[in-house]
């Protein structure tokens, strides 16, 4: 079931652009070469979130946030959608905003990659660039300030505190994983940014499969290069962050994620972004400790938005023992 199906069954009065229909129902792909060292009874699968129309997992929460706001009369009344974003959420807001005629204003750290800034401008979003030294938390504070100053102009979407964020994953990502694994998922692994993906998906999985293990991961230090992810002990904690469900998160070092994006590209044909590399590092760590299991993680986006980091993609890496053939 997609988010759109859910909304249409609840109310068929919402006018939606057809783009919305293609949000969610992303492919679940097996890791084959990268999982060779695991127990033969352990499999690792990844949700390929770059198949969403806006190019990332953030289409799910952005669409759900916008649809809820329209439903409640918060948007569609001339107000601008306002939020802070490190990039992907902004691209999703701008995509659906453009399609639905909703103007979008985004507080974005000036250090956001040039690709992301260019995409946001292409989609017509108004950008307010914030102090790069403050990172995404500086953008959060700027959005809060603007929302407080001009409530007449802005509707503050507030992805870090908006329940429609995690509910998007409860309504779509969770059910998809159950369906695509025929209910056989044993471990779910996701990174913490807003914590929406982890919280919403985990809540649904735990309701349906009480024995499932849910494992969060975060960067290993406050200063890191895992775009979109937060080191929770040193960051502004999202309101939707559920500490009791997270437990003790795994920690991923940026360099390990960098190496993994190259391995994913060259050994699996999966050209993905840095947080996806981190997700696979964490998922393989979980899987390596299992005798038997089905591990699922979420790969938030593709590698295109990181191409300006040329050194990242020119790392030396060749598979040690090429394994030719198999299904593509």
């Amino acid at each position, binding site marked *: 079931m997609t988010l759109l199906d859910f909304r249409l069954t609840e109310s068929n009065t919402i006018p939606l652009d057809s783009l919305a229909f293609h949000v969610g129902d992303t492919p679940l792909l097996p890791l084959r070469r990268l999982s060779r060292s695991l127990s033969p009874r352990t499999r690792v699968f990844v949700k390929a979130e770059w198949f969403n129309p806006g190019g990332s997992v953030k289409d799910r929460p952005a669409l759900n946030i916008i649809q809820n706001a329209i439903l409640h009369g918060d948007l569609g009344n001339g107000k601008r959608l306002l939020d802070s974003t490190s*990039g992907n959420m902004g691209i999703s807001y701008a995509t659906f905003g453009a399609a639905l005629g909703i103007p979008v204003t985004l507080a974005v750290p000036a250090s956001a990659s040039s690709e992301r800034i260019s995409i946001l401008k292409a989609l017509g979003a108004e950008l307010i660039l914030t102090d790069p*030294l403050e*990172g995404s*938390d500086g953008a959060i504070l700027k959005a809060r300030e603007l929302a407080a100053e001009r409530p007449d102009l802005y509707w503050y979407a507030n992805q870090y505190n908006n329940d429609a964020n995690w509910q998007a994953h409860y309504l779509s990502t969770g059910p998809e994983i159950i369906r695509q694994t025929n209910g056989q998922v044993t471990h779910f692994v996701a990174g913490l940014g807003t914590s929406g993906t982890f919280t919403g998906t985990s809540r649904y999985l735990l309701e349906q499969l009480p024995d499932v293990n849910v494992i969060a991961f975060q960067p290993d230090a406050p200063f890191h*290069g895992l775009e979109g992810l937060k080191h929770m002990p*040193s960051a502004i904690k999202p309101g939707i962050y559920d500490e009791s469900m997270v437990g003790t998160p795994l920690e991923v070092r940026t360099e390990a994620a960098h190496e993994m994006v190259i391995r994913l590209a060259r050994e699996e044909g999966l050209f993905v972004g840095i947080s996806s590399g981190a997700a696979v590092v964490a998922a393989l760590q979980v899987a390596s400790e299992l005798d038997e299991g089905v591990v699922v993680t979420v790969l938030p986006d593709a590698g295109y938005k990181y191409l300006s980091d040329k050194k990242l993609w020119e790392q030396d890496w060749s598979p040690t023992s090429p394994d030719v053939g198999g299904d593509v």
Partner: protein
Amino acid sequence: MTTLRIPTPLRTYTGGKSEVTVGGVKISDALNDLTTQFPAIKPHLFNESGELRPFVNLFVGEHNIKDLQGVDTPIKDGDKVMLIPSIAGGRTS
């Protein structure tokens, strides 16, 4: 002397300072001075081989040193150099 601007996640290691004055004629000198003044910051900026970690961005004015001469990029008195965190980096709240 050069002013090195420190991002919020690293201020824990600079005694809360947002700016540190450093000496030298190139970026590597400035970073050596920084890590001499504040040794705890070193593992966050450099890997075990002593190389700058790949996601550490340094800007001299508007320019990323990756587009200039890397750590050999020259600096002069009065320059402002900015250490940029990854964009989801945290603020100590």
